[in-house]
């Protein structure tokens, strides 16, 4: 399975059991991408990491 990187349009090979919401680094441009939907797999730039706060 593979998908296109939204940043550099490179093609990224993905694991068969890719999870919804999983973070995938783009091997070409290094951008951090998020699996925003499955079948078909769509990747978007992952949101910034925010500090951990919850109880």
């Amino acid at each position, binding site marked *: 399975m593979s998908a296109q990187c939204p940043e550099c349009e490179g093609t990224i090979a993905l694991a068969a059991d890719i*999870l*919804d*919401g*999983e*973070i995938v680094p783009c091997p070409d441009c290094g951008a951090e991408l*998020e699996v925003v939907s499955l079948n078909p797999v769509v990747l978007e730039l*992952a*949101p910034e*990491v*925010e*500090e*951990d*706060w*919850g*109880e």
Partner: protein
Amino acid sequence: MLVIKIGGAAGIDYSNLCNDIAQLAAQGQPIVLFHGGSDGANTLGEQLGHPPRFITSPSGHTSRQTDRRTLEIFMMATALLNRQLVERLRGLGVNAFGLSGLDGGLLQGNRKTNVRAVENGRVRVIRDDWTGSIDQVNRDLLQMLLSTGYLPVIAPLAVSAAGEPLNIDGDRGAASVAAALEAETLLLLTNVSGLYRNFPDESSLIERLPRTELTHASEKLAQGRMKKKLLGAQTALEAGVRRVIIGDGRSEQPVSAALAGNGTIIE
């Protein structure tokens, strides 16, 4: 001003704590009590068929995955504990006033739009999350209550600009309140005697910890919840609180014992 944080963990006898607080308040010591609620929320969640799920962030922090249903369970469980503490304190003649960070915008924060969780090595983004930071304390509200003779008992919620209730970390909440009130002492009560050099060896209790060693301690010595307590301590000290004590919530007079130097004093 003394800000006391009591956890929601099992094994803490609230009557000892409340008796101790009532005595100190009667002697004129201004006090704010901040409580957690994790234990009660876990139990209630299980009873309602929505058990808690904990997520670990890439940097190692564990927190409760707080979807809307979990938030509502958390709000109910913490409200019950709040009312039980107010009940006990009022019964001892203390003019206790229960509220949460939601009420009157006491604790204003930002809702985290997303959280990252690590599950067996894979990192995932979680969106429906109702946790938040604490960016501002409504100090006027607290001082109004304190100056008119009330003892605030605060439940661990903050509120976003959009009015959303937010699950917050109790230790950080207490630290923000202590900072806002420029308290002399922030007392974090827990179900151990303090910070240990090598947990759980009781004889390795650290009695004095200079603030300069806080970062080291939180990285090397502390695990789980204790990490968060040390982070809370750091926030408080940086904002002008004179000392932070990590004390034993299980003792007969947990507050007086800590003020007398038992536990880990961080200055």
